[in-house]
């Protein structure tokens, strides 16, 4: 007889603190941004910046995160007229971030031109904080996954998004999210095992 204790199979939604100085509901925020109001844009950045930065940092690394998030907000400000409100603001912003990340991966941006010294002394960002060796290995291998697999993995495990929201952000059916997550975890496991056996 197997017993599954309690509701462990149902994941608890993670709380996402809003850091705006004054309360904005989403509809007001959208209307304000569409009208080009500076206070609305500020509230948008305060509300979503840290979350996007965290995702960008995990997907692309600390060096590229700030640029990706900046690009995302610039594109959002330019494109607000086209946002119809069918999806949540956060989902829409993450879909733009993902798009910028794809461009970044395709190497269409110029910010990687300046050469860095071979000895690893990074001039543009501080050293990453120490992370347990095993977890570091998994994190490094996750960055070897293709964008299509890495993005749902990060959005699910780091940000706690549902399949439906990931599907909207990635503009694909929910079934695709499910299969990509399966493949991402499976492939990651194989990459980690391979690295350990080296």
């Amino acid at each position: 007889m197997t017993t599954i204790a309690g509701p462990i199979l149902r994941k608890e939604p993670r709380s996402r603190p809003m850091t705006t100085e004054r309360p904005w509901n989403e509809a007001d925020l959208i209307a304000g941004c569409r009208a080009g109001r500076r206070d609305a844009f500020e509230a948008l950045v305060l509300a979503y910046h840290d979350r996007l930065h965290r995702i960008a940092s995990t997907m692309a690394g600390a060096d590229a995160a700030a640029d990706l998030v900046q690009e995302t907000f610039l594109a959002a400000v330019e494109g607000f007229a086209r946002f119809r409100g069918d999806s949540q603001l956060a989902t829409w912003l993450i879909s733009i971030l993902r798009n910028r990340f794809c461009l970044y991966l395709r190497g269409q941006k110029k910010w990687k031109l300046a050469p860095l010294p071979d000895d690893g002394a990074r001039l543009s960002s501080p050293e990453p904080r120490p992370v347990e060796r095993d977890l570091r290995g998994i994190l490094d291998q996750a960055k070897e996954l293709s964008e299509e697999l890495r993005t749902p993995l990060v959005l699910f495990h780091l940000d706690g998004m549902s399949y439906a929201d990931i599907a909207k952000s990635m503009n694909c059916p929910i079934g695709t999210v499910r299969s990509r997550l399966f493949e991402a975890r499976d492939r990651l496991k194989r990459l980690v095992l391979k690295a350990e056996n080296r």
Partner: protein
Amino acid sequence: MTCSDAREAMDALLDGELTAAEETEFRVHLDACGDCERELAELREWHGTIGEALSAEAPDPAAVAESRRGILEALGASPPRRVPLARLAALLAIGLSVGVVASAVGFSRPPEAQVARLVEGLKQQEQRDAQLRAVHQEIEQDLAEARHAVAGRADRDPAARAIEVATTNLSRRLLQDPPEPESSAAEVLSITRNGDGGTVSIVQKDDGRIRVQTPLGTIEARNMPDLLVRYPDLCRRYSIGGSDGRLQMADSSAGVDWRGRLDLLLRSGTWDETLQWEAYRGWVAGRAADAKDIERRLKAHQERCRASGEPRVESSLAIDAESILRRVKAFTREEVRRSQDRLAAEMKQLDGRLKEAADLRARARGLRIFAEDIGHD
């Protein structure tokens, strides 16, 4: 439920994405299967480890705050620009810093000719980048003028509506943003057939999306070309073909009228220049007396588009050649070589983007002229 079904459901179960009924079915199987129970425990542990690993490296709070402050400042200062000058400044700053470090540790100096080549390459790159921005500005201007010319007419004039939708699609392509997901698109076309072990149906919705349901499962694609490219085997198996607005499955077919098809082509993003001429021909046909007149007006319009297709502006950005020279002169031999390699790759990409931008510009220009014709009619 078999062990194979259970294994397929495990990920979704742990992710909290199974329905209550599916979960109940899974639990019943688990009660009777020790292998699946063990596998589930291992998988649960692996999921936890992944979550822990991805969350392990939190960004430096100072860097996050600095990024947030930078964006707030940029938003407050002026309308956003596609390539913020701050990035160019940062690029130069990084370059200079690297140069200083390289000099300090005494790496070997590169030959003058190599430095000169790199400087020339970097100047050309800045020039192309400026050209790209200028072309993008031109496109945005043409699209804005096209929208203005047909403003308020979309409800009563299908050609004006076509222009409105086409300008939106071109703007999207310019920004390279994904289209917003549609939540409640209605079906416009469908074919259902029985055979080969079950029912197969293909449906196109009014946002252009295609859904194919087979006994093996359901798939979705953005539009018909997307379906044919991504699922060639399935299309071959069920003899699915056609284009947006004209579906085929074996000997069955379904289609919408020209206007409906135009709508689908625009919404699904498969609109192209040929179709623009078709739209124009359709519009002229309602106003010209005979076929010759229609073709004459069409040719005149194409001629005007071609004549105005040349770039109006070259680069308006002054290149700071001195700064580039200073930066490169501080490089070591190895850094010059690596920069040269990267530059070659980036120039290739930049050329591709310029080519794509030129294509977009021609289409935006054609749309503007088309819109002006309609606006003056």
